[in-house]
């Protein structure tokens, strides 16, 4: 069975009417040291008004997938070697640079992890937002400014009018992140990709930002892809979760199922490694070993050297991402056993 079979969940092969679909995507980086197979068949989708959380360890390919969706993959050294990224059913990987540029901002927008480097330090925050309205919407200078101030106000930057002419470095970390959000939702995108939007912030400010994103999403019925490795944030806001390991989706489930009963040993290991307020004094359970070297991914299941459940078959056969029902899928040979045991 191919991995694609998991994508068209009904197996009928007709267009699914989905907003954004990544289908069996493959990306590699060709560097002096060799070829790193970074994305090895990633399949996920997001619909209007829903939040898909993409979870996974550092280096598992979360950001590279997002960059490919946005059409900003660093090429070379990065190359797409297979798969499709469909927006409203059309494969964007086959579209012209001009077509893709038009989708960016209005169709799909992205919030970057590092707001300081994503904002241009030599222009004021207000100008950077207003420019979008001038260039993309043809607004006059004064109308664009008015809209930009509205946007800053909407993301709850106090005294938005006065802040319009501040430079990025004059904003605090939390305010910069809000300015980034203002910039990315300015053109009312249908899909928002938020790559670790709160990692650099502390919990009280993080709570403000996640609230804000939730509100904007409800108002505008945006589809949201939230990339993070914070299992706490995910439990708070996600509808569905896709777990990545070594460039593949190893598990997909709705948020309640995933936390209650993970269907992949890697997910189980992640959940067990979180320090819990109520388990003080006990040794934390860990996932032994390290993530694989992407230039030399182990044969069979990429997780097998670290997996407590591994069997000989795991070293030989790549487990396909198979549906388990209720929108759940797992890429483990023993997924059924894992879900059915208590």
């Amino acid at each position: 069975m191919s991995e694609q079979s998991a994508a068209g969940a009904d197996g009928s092969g007709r267009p699914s009417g989905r907003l954004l679909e990544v289908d069996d995507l493959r990306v590699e980086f060709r560097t002096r040291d060799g070829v790193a197979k970074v994305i090895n068949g990633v399949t996920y989708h997001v619909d209007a008004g829903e939040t898909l959380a993409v979870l996974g360890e550092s280096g598992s390919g979360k950001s590279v997938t997002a960059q490919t969706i946005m059409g900003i993959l660093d090429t070379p050294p990065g190359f797409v070697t297979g798969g499709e990224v469909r927006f409203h059913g059309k494969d964007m990987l086959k579209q012209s640079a001009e077509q893709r540029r038009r989708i960016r901002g209005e169709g799909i927008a992205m919030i970057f992890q590092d707001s300081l480097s994503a904002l241009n330090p030599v222009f004021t925050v207000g100008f950077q937002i207003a420019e979008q309205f001038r260039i993309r919407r043809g607004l006059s200078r004064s109308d664009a400014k008015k809209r930009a101030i509205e946007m800053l106000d909407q993301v709850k930057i106090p005294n938005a009018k006065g802040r319009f002419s501040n430079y990025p470095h004059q904003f605090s970390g939390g305010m910069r992140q809000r300015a980034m959000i203002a910039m990315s939702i300015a053109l009312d995108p249908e899909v928002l990709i938020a790559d670790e939007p709160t990692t650099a912030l502390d919990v009280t400010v993080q709570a403000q930002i996640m609230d804000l994103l939730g509100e904007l999403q409800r108002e505008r019925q945006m589809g949201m892809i939230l990339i993070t490795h914070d299992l706490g944030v995910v439990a708070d806001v996600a509808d569905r979760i896709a777990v990545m390991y070594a460039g593949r989706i190893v598990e997909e489930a709705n948020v309640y199922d995933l936390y209650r009963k993970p269907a992949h040993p890697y997910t189980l290991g992640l959940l067990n490694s979180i320090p819990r307020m109520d388990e003080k004094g006990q040794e934390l359970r860990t996932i032994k070993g390290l993530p694989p070297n992407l230039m030399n991914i182990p044969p069979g299941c990429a997780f097998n050297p670290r997996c407590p459940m591994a069997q000989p078959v795991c070293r030989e056969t790549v487990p396909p991402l198979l549906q388990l029902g209720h929108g759940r899928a797992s890429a483990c040979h023993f997924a059924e056993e894992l879900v059915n045991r208590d």
Partner: protein
Amino acid sequence: MTENIIEVRDLVKHYPVTQGVVFKKTIGHVKAVDGVSFDLKAGETLGVVGESGCGKSTLARVLMNLEKPTAGQVLYKGQDISKLSGGALRRLRRQIQLVMQDPYTSLNPRMTVGDLIGEPFEIHPEVAPRASRRNKVKELLDLVGLNPEHINRYPHQFSGGQRQRIGIARALALRPEVIVCDEPVSALDVSIQAQVMNLLEKLQAELGLSYVFIAHDLSVVRHLSDRVAVMYLGKMVEVGTEDEIYERPTHPYTQALLSAVPVPDPTVRESKAIIRLQGDVPSPVSPPSGCRFRTRCWKAQDVCAQEVPLLEIRPGSDHPSACHFAEKREIVVTHEVA
């Protein structure tokens, strides 16, 4: 009675803010740490939490005697560390070690792991005679769970979690009594973070170490700490046993902080009562008068702008809190997964 190994008294560290290139003029001060007092007992872990920029790393640097305090004292076994010199200072430097946040930049990339971990012996040759050093380094590698055969490798050949272990081995080389850990697991993935936390606990049990454990992740701090101090804008606002802080916090900032901790359990989403703070943290150059938290506090009264609340035990509570109106409040922090 366990003895205090470190006593911090009214510690202040200000950094001048200057203007002008040729004639630098001081136009103000960053009040990074502004009157902090606490004790560290032998064998205990004191957790320090607080928002970014509240002065945690500054506190660590002053504790390590890497920077002189603007005012106040750090006493190590009763001796003021900023007054030590010569042999006494060298002995102190052996006893307090630092593990830093960033496992990627805190190790010299041109030194092998053996040289990195053995470097402290060059400065303190009395700890290990030259001939025995290689073996000592191998023992240390083994102690922190790294392969002693990898003694000749360079830092870039290790992952983040492994590099953090190298940093820990290095800190342990001189058999210190105290290790100051400044965000030792913040840059690591959950699965690797858990490995390093287990290691720190194991080493404490085996070697009787005391830790000052700085972090912004409240679950991590709770897991490791006996007592916890909460900082806000250069001040300690509440301090107590981990139980007192996590189960019975009385300072509004601590309450807000705990209420906002994301809980890894989707079933408590709806029932969680997050205290939503307004606005951003004020600038440490001109902190608010009176209580520094008042610009974001939902309980603030006139007195909060006029009088600095002291860090003291008030009637009806069992541990020190720097709030005029300190009181308990129910907070839903459930980390239980069915």
